[in-house]
């Protein structure tokens, strides 16, 4: 269960990007976050594993308050949070297996990491997951030899190798063609069910969000203004999420302040 309360993020004392945001994600729910660019979707996701440092508020994952953690505690907590990226963020010059095993770096010894002598159960788990997403035969290929869809599968497997308690996906399909994009979305949905894993997906493609996720959260200018099942997302709600006029919003905020 992930619980976000009164989360505020402002960069270098500017206007807040996230404004008193509350969100709860539990079970094996697949949640998509939609909203126009600059709405704060990416910042929200990165606050959860503290790639971006929240300004105030609390983020609790299964009882651990992530915002209070010191450096080494944060590393331990980050192992429990998997992340998938828009540009895959693989190490191009390493093999697929090395990339997949890099998801275990938080667990294995430095010596094992250096010599690439991974624990047997990690190798078995890697092969199982790679088999599951259809990239097992690439284990010895270099990551940059793969196509976009295959690279994102490596990214997903790397995140799952952590045996995470939650999976964050920051626009995982934005660099992919429409067909591959649907495959990856279907894969994320199915894996969430199989592994009983909550997944939060930032996404621009509303059709895919409706089709593949259980719940849609709509953000505008750092606030959540929609949070419901996909069927409830009608034209009016879409207008509110995407057609907001920034000037109006700022004026309203100025009046409130």
């Amino acid at each position, binding site marked *: 269960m992930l619980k976000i309360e009164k989360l505020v993020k402002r960069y270098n004392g500017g206007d807040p990007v996230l404004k008193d945001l509350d969100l709860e994600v539990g079970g094996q729910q697949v949640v998509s976050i939609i909203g126009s660019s600059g709405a704060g979707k990416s910042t929200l996701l990165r606050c959860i594993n503290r790639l971006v440092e929240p300004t105030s508020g609390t983020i609790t994952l299964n009882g651990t308050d992530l915002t209070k953690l010191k450096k080494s505690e944060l590393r331990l907590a980050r192992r429990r949070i998997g992340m998938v990226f828009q540009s895959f963020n693989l190490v191009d010059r390493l093999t697929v297996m090395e990339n997949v095993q890099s998801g275990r*770096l938080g667990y294995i010894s430095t010596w094992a990491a250096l010599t690439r002598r991974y624990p047997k159960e990690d190798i078995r788990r890697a092969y199982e997951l790679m088999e599951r997403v259809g990239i097992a035969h690439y284990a010895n290929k270099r990551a940059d030899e793969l196509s976009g869809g295959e690279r994102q599968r490596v990214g997903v497997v790397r995140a799952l190798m952590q045996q995470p308690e939650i999976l964050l996906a920051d626009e995982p399909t934005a660099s992919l063609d429409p067909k591959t994009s649907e495959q990856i979305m279907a894969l994320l949905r199915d894996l969430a069910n199989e592994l009983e894993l909550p997944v939060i997906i930032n996404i621009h493609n509303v059709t895919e969000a409706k089709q593949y996720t259980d719940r849609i959260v709509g953000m505008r200018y750092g606030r959540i203004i929609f949070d419901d099942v996909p069927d409830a997302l009608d034209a009016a709600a879409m207008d509110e999420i995407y057609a907001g006029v920034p000037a109006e919003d700022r004026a309203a905020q100025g009046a409130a302040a």
Partner: protein
Amino acid sequence: MSPTTLDHWSRYTPKQRIKRYGVLLATLLVVAWALQSIDVIWEWVWDSPAQMADLFGRMIPPDPQNLPSIMQAMWETVNIATIATLFAIVISLPVAYIAARNTTPNVVTLWIGRFILVSSRSVNTIIWALLFVAIFGPGIIAGIVAIMFRSIGFMGKLLGEAIEEIDTRPVEALQASGASRFKVVLYAIVPQVMPTFFAVSILRWDINLRESTVLGLVGAGGIGIILQGAIDTFNWPEVSTVLLAILAFVILGEVVSMYLRKRIL
């Protein structure tokens, strides 16, 4: 400005033109002043073709009598270059790490790293050699340390720049998975810097082979000592043998480094 007709155009205004002529005049004056301030004995300059022919005449034929000791000194030269390069590689890695803005632990270490690079690079190998001959006495150790000191700056600088130019996205991904700093370096940075690392190491070895041939001139070991001795005793046939040996050796080094580059990169 009010141009009444449209048939006139010039690149510069009169003011700009005067300025440009002024700069040109000043440049000519500086060159003239530089020429008359150095003390050139023009007879010797005009004489030089004849002198060159004379010297060549004395160098031919090369005298192979000392070839065994020349080859031995040559071997010593290769060793100076190779050992110094190996040590420099090992030392330049941590220096590059702290001199790169994105990996250095803090501002102090960044400046220490930068200082090591600048001080190493701003002093020529020969000057380092003079210094280390004074410290270690004449011989091969002074040569190795001199080349090493110069190489650390060169390799540290290029490696540090390679570290600064890496793709930071894999770094972010591994940090997000809870990997420690060292493991992030090992998995996300080292593979990206590897090609530069090999290229720079081979290039520096290549440069060091050539630099080590002149170290003997200041007593820091290698072939230069024999060359110096031969020149001092006007043993021109032996000088030409040494020069030919150096030429062959540099070409051989070039071939080897080309082969390594092809195999590794």
